[in-house]
């Protein structure tokens, strides 16, 4: 099955599951991410989008808020774009690029005739300034700096030629460069107003530009009439269709859903799963859940703490987990079940790593074989008088922990659930207090897995220290040939599953609702972030 059919199949699977769950008349198929023929498109209209939390700063170099990408992509343009279907890089502010044989020297040819919102030209010097500024140790940079962590230095040998010199080969570089936070900002605006104040003088090259930022309340962008440098993979040329785009911050799930229903906003993100089936039946709304790429939502196993340090117990849990039921009950089928660590829509996803399916008999047999028996009749197995009891530490936002608990108990593994705050979870993760902890990642390129499975990484919740896995991960990061990379990543996925460092449960797409008149929203490769250049309002 090609990736394209797979994406389609996953989307359809969601629709089918939802239909099965609610028994309603068929809602419209998921909205096309490609715009309709130009004849139907009208210019004008004001789009209002409800985001969840205050975006904080509008300076992408300081921002650590992923959701802000929904704003950055409208005002800023990165050097490249990753095609969500083929996963191939396409030019955005860069038109072409070359990489040296050792993969450490990248040369980008930049698009000409591009102007920043303040009228200054975009060229290699401006691009170099962007990288230098983001990498400047004096800058209190946000998480965006991670994206360019492999860059050692930058040169601008010609007006439209940019050279990146890397510390080590990074096959995921183009993916890292496609995020909205690496969109090019005006050097002059930062020099004039400073990094903090840049938020109020936000300036890039995108089709929409800042009109006003009312902190904590809303951000409004208006059309950039001078925009005429759209890359060819976009749906049209010239300025954007919308008069303005406003983002509002509505933390409360119920309220965010209500204002979409009233029409107070045209688009709302992160719709709560329990409401989605009801909203799909609403004729005025379109609900989208593009399949994401990244690590599936699942459970990280702490391999350094008893009893999850025992491979047999981890394997037993992998056989005992009923993902179908979990998906249906906890996430109303909106989040489809999966048995692979990389979710199916990810580059280098390997179907062969799908080792486990729901088979409680197999789980019991494994535990029996390893000498774990229920001797005192309480339903929980023990060995040498020690019962198997795992500590499950999670945040309130993870649904369905009790279901997992009952599924594990059914094969004789006891589960204690401990609910903590985000800060508490991070603390527990770094101290290794947990046995199992939910986790998953939204990301484009699979090399982000390095941070989750390398010894000593702060995000290594499974506390894995596996030399062979590390070698595979590092080799994959250095392999520029995509076939070679995917072979290595297939081995990575197999090794993770064989050792059950991560127990995948469901794929976690974003759920976005729009009013029917909103057409032509484009999603990035992660399926979570929107590009609204081709978006228009149908009247």
């Amino acid at each position: 099955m090609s990736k394209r059919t797979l994406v389609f199949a996953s989307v359809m699977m969601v629709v089918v599951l939802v239909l099965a769950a609610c028994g309603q008349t068929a809602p419209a198929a998921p909205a096309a991410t490609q715009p309709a023929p130009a004849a139907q498109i009208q210019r004008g209209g004001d789009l209002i989008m409800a985001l969840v939390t205050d975006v904080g700063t509008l300076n992408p170099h300081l921002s650590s808020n992923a959701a802000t990408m929904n704003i950055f992509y409208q005002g800023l343009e990165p050097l490249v774009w990753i095609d969500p279907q083929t996963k191939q890089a396409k030019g955005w502010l860069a038109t072409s690029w070359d990489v040296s044989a050792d993969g450490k020297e990248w040369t980008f040819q930049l698009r000409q005739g591009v102007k920043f919102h303040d009228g200054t030209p975009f060229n290699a010097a401006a691009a170099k300034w962007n990288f230098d500024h983001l990498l400047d140790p004096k800058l209190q940079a946000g998480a965006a700096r991670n994206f360019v962590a492999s860059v050692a230095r930058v040169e601008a040998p010609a007006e439209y030629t940019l050279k990146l010199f890397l510390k080590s080969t990074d096959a995921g570089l183009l993916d890292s460069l496609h995020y909205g936070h690496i969109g090019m900002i005006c050097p002059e605006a930062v020099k004039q107003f400073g990094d903090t104040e840049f938020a109020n003088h936000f300036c890039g090259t995108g089709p929409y530009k800042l009109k006003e930022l009312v902190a904590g309340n809303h951000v409004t962008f208006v059309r950039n009439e001078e925009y005429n440098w759209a890359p060819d993979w976009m749906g049209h040329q010239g300025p954007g269709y919308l008069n303005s785009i406003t983002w509002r911050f509505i933390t409360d799930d119920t309220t965010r859903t209500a204002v979409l229903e009233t029409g107070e906003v045209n688009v709302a993100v992160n719709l709560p799963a329990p409401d989605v089936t009801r909203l799909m039946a609403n004729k005025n709304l379109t609900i989208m859940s593009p399949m994401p790429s990244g690590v599936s939502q699942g459970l990280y196993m702490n391999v350094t703490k008893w009893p999850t340090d025992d491979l047999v117990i981890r394997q037993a849990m992998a056989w005992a987990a009923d993902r179908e039921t979990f998906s249906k009950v906890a996430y109303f089928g909106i989040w489809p079940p999966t048995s692979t660590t990389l979710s199916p829509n990810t580059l280098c996803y390997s179907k062969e790593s799908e080792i486990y399916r729901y088979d409680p008999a197999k789980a019991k047999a494994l535990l029996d074989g390893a000498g774990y028996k229920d001797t005192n009749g309480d339903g929980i197995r023990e060995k040498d008088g020690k019962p198997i009891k795992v500590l499950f530490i999670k945040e309130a936002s993870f649904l369905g922990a009790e279901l997992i608990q009952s599924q594990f108990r059914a094969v004789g593994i006891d589960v204690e659930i401990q609910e903590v705050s985000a800060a508490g979870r991070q603390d527990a993760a770094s101290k290794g207090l947990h046995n199992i902890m939910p986790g998953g990642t939204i990301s484009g390129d699979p090399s982000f897995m390095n941070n989750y499975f390398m010894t000593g990484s702060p995000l290594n919740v499974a506390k894995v220290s596996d030399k062979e896995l590390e070698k595979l991960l590092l080799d994959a990061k250095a392999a520029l040939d995509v076939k070679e990379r995917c072979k290595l990543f297939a081995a990575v996925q197999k090794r993770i599953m064989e050792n059950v460092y991560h127990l995948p449960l469901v794929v976690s797409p974003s759920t976005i609702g729009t009013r029917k008149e909103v057409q032509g929203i484009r999603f990035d490769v992660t399926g979570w972030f929107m590009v609204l250049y081709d978006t228009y309002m149908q009247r």
Partner: protein
Amino acid sequence: MLGYALRRLLWGIPVAFSIAVFVFSTLHLVPGDPVLMLLGSSSGLFNVTPELIEETRQQYGLNDPLPVQFARWAGNLLRGDLGLSIRIKRPVTTLILERIPPTIELTLAGMAVGTLLGFGLGLIAALKRDSWVDTLCMVAALVGVSMPSFWFGFLLIFLFSLTLAWLPATGYGGLDRLILPAITLGFALSAVTARLVRAAVIEVLAQEYVTTARAKGLRETVILYRHVLKNVMIPVITILGVQFGSLLSGSVIIEAVFARQGIGQLLVDAILAKDFPVVQGVTLVMAIAYVLLNILVDISYPLFDPRILYK
């Protein structure tokens, strides 16, 4: 009077300072690392290298011993600088100034609704004591106290925004966006006020000077305005003063339901993200507001009861 106010103000300084020390130390005792919270955001999108974490800790001075961090913060505070938010990367002072207007607006509107409604209900209940009107008013007050404000808020949104489409459900700016949250806040507040007013009015009505006034042949309305209400004001103002203070920080839930990003929301977000500078700054400002309010309440007493004099 002025001397009294000044003395009270001076006392406010050690109070605010103690609160600052207390907040600072509890914040650092609770588990969690602001840098990890910031960089390893829960969506998991951003990967984070150990080097970046270490670098960021250094930049924020989070590796220094606690007393050093406190001294630095207190030193900046004396210069009027509350520091930079770790999460939002903007000056705390600016954030507070931006977030205070929605909160004050809501608090004042809620207080107005609550006081009018509470006074009305309480007064009617007291005058029609032990009748069905009294019972009705007190049941309304009971419902107001018992019903969670987020639930009442949703009911209002459901009725006035979703079904009737009369008023917008969310946002800040304009009277139309203020009505629903103000009613939500005011309803809960009115319940407390109504019960208090009822009790106070009943007590005053039983006083001998009311009997005397009636014996003089004064009209009931005159008795009510000149003798009863004036004497009821003292306990009511005390309660309203306290309520105002707690509403300033405590309307978080209503702010969340109606998506009004006020100071309460700012504080909750900051606590969850372990954004130390913001938590410290907001708490300090809140504490000072509280102290000032109490002083205001105290010096307003003579307006209603000339017997109270401050020296």
